[in-house]
């Protein structure tokens, strides 16, 4: 088995059209139930059990059997918050196999998932390609598309999870700071992206005007879209809308970033199936073609990246994704950029110039009609803020919008193309999808 794919990552400027544009398609997707955390007793609701369900649901959605899958891709590195021993001390008690270690409970290895599919009676018996090393779904979707385009796999099952565990963790305890933390923790910054994005957001407000409260229409609309997403965390567990007063009186963590500006960690899993456009023609679902994918990875040049950095990086990202797809901003119908913190989503909105939004214009845009039924249905997924920190709602929504199956979230404007990605301006992956094999 091989574990690498040519043409990945796509970091460079001027790469032109993606060499596999329109020759790879998404033909299935699936997701699990969603919980805030595992309850410690329900073995059918562990992160591993959720991920197996998502994989099986994707296979069923595509009208395939597990034996049709010849490529498998996952992120073994803990994507969400796992039961990190460094925070918790001794390992917690485990159970009978397959839950005799952390594997399957708060993180999942490729081997655990593959064995799990066999246990479930849906063995992935024809795998020729396994890639277990993806960072996060933004990069993973691009690499999955590239692997199919490069011929590494013909039908590739890609899966991703985000987990959450109880309590407070990743603390800086004691009186000493070592490693990279010595440059931040003494002054109170403990490696969370929150402070980085709060700083860039402040620079944004200084440069263009506005304030934290100008994010209110966006954050409220994210929750609204999330409540229109039946499987989402809030639709499932806290099915009520937040108000402007809630937003303006929220608890701040690191001003200007508050609790409602931050996504809510959850237990959830997702899967997607990629195949060749040729094979997709005769499959159950209408093919959704991959027109382009790009990635970004930028070292921070000093303690903090700046607004100038974020604008430069996201401009490059948008330019390269459009170029790979042969598209222009006006060709992009559905746009689901990342919103792990509400404070940085405008970086993507303005870089992609979606619906003509230029640098410094996001607050005015947010104040307009961004509802899904309106003319500018921004982030129709509800994102992480509306659905919980799945990092995948932007993918499920994009597929559903392009299939015309988004239900109450189905937009009234044209929905033939979509772009989405995650995570932050400094490190991310994005993908461009279309119901047509070319623009």
């Amino acid at each position: 088995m091989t574990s690498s794919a040519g043409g990945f990552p796509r970091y460079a400027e001027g790469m032109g059209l993606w060499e596999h544009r329109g020759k790879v398609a998404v033909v299935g997707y699936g997701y699990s139930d969603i919980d805030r955390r595992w309850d410690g007793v329900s073995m059918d609701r562990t992160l591993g059990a959720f991920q197996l369900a998502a994989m099986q649901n994707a296979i069923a959605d595509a009208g395939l059997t597990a034996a049709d899958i010849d490529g498998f891709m996952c992120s073994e590195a803990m994507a969400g918050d796992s039961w990190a021993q460094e925070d918790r001390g001794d390992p917690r008690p485990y159970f009978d196999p397959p839950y005799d270690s952390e594997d399957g409970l708060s993180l999942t290895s490729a081997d655990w998932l593959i064995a799990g599919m066999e246990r479930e009676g849906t063995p992935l018996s024809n795998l020729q390609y396994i890639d277990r090393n993806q960072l996060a779904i933004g990069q993973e979707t691009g690499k999955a598309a590239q692997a199919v385009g490069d011929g590494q796999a013909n039908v590739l099952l890609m899966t991703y999870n985000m987990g959450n565990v109880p309590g407070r963790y990743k603390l800086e305890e004691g009186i000493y700071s070592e490693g990279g933390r010595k440059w931040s923790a003494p002054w109170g910054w403990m490696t969370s992206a929150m402070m980085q994005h709060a700083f860039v957001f402040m620079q944004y407000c200084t440069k263009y005007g506005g304030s934290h409260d100008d994010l209110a229409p966006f954050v409220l609309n994210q929750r609204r879209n999330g409540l229109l997403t039946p499987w989402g965390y809030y639709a499932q567990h806290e099915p009520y809308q937040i108000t402007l007063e809630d937003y303006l009186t929220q608890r701040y963590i690191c001003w200007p970033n508050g609790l409602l500006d931050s996504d809510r960690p959850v237990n959830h899993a997702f899967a997607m199936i990629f195949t060749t456009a040729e094979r997709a023609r005769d499959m159950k679902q209408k093919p959704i073609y991959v027109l382009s994918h790009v990635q970004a990875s930028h070292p921070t040049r000093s303690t903090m990246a700046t607004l100038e950095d974020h604008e430069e990086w996201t401009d490059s990202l948008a330019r390269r994704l459009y170029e790979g797809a042969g598209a222009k901003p006006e060709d992009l119908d559905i746009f689901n950029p990342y919103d792990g913190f509400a404070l940085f989503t405008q970086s993507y909105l303005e870089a992609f110039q979606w619906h003509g939004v230029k640098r410094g214009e996001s607050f005015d845009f947010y104040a307009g009609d961004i509802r899904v039924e309106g003319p500018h249905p921004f982030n129709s997924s509800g994102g992480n803020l509306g659905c919980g920190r799945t990092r995948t709602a932007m993918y499920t929504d994009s597929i559903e919008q392009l299939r015309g199956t988004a239900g109450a979230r189905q937009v009234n404007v044209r929905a033939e193309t979509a772009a989405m990605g995650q995570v932050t301006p400094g490190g991310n992956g994005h993908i461009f999808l279309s119901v047509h094999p070319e623009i």
Partner: protein
Amino acid sequence: MPKTIPVADELDKPFWDGVNEKKLVLQYCTACERLQYPIKANCVHCDTKDPLDWKEVEGKGHILETLVVHDTRVVRLKGDVPFNVSIISLDEDPSINFLANLPGTPVTEAPQGAAVEVVFEELEPGRFIHDWKVVE
């Protein structure tokens, strides 16, 4: 505020030695003639393989922005919330930025754009850390 105490390693020892002598000594890339902070193994600006040099800077800067921490993962600082965390640009190279708690400046009263100068706070005997203070 009882800051946590940085533990120097082989790479950044010259920096912390400088701080302990109340000097701000940054990395300096002789290939691209750029300063660098925080301390890293390689130049973040160019692809030189040459080892980075060291250069003392004057320690004057300006406040870019100020955040207010209301909740922190740094256990030692939990009793001090809310507190300022300002981002300071170095006058000698504004692309270099530092964190600062602005000792003496009340929370929410940090003057954006104000001039600051480096100060050194003794955390335990002989071990200092740099912070930045508004110039009156």
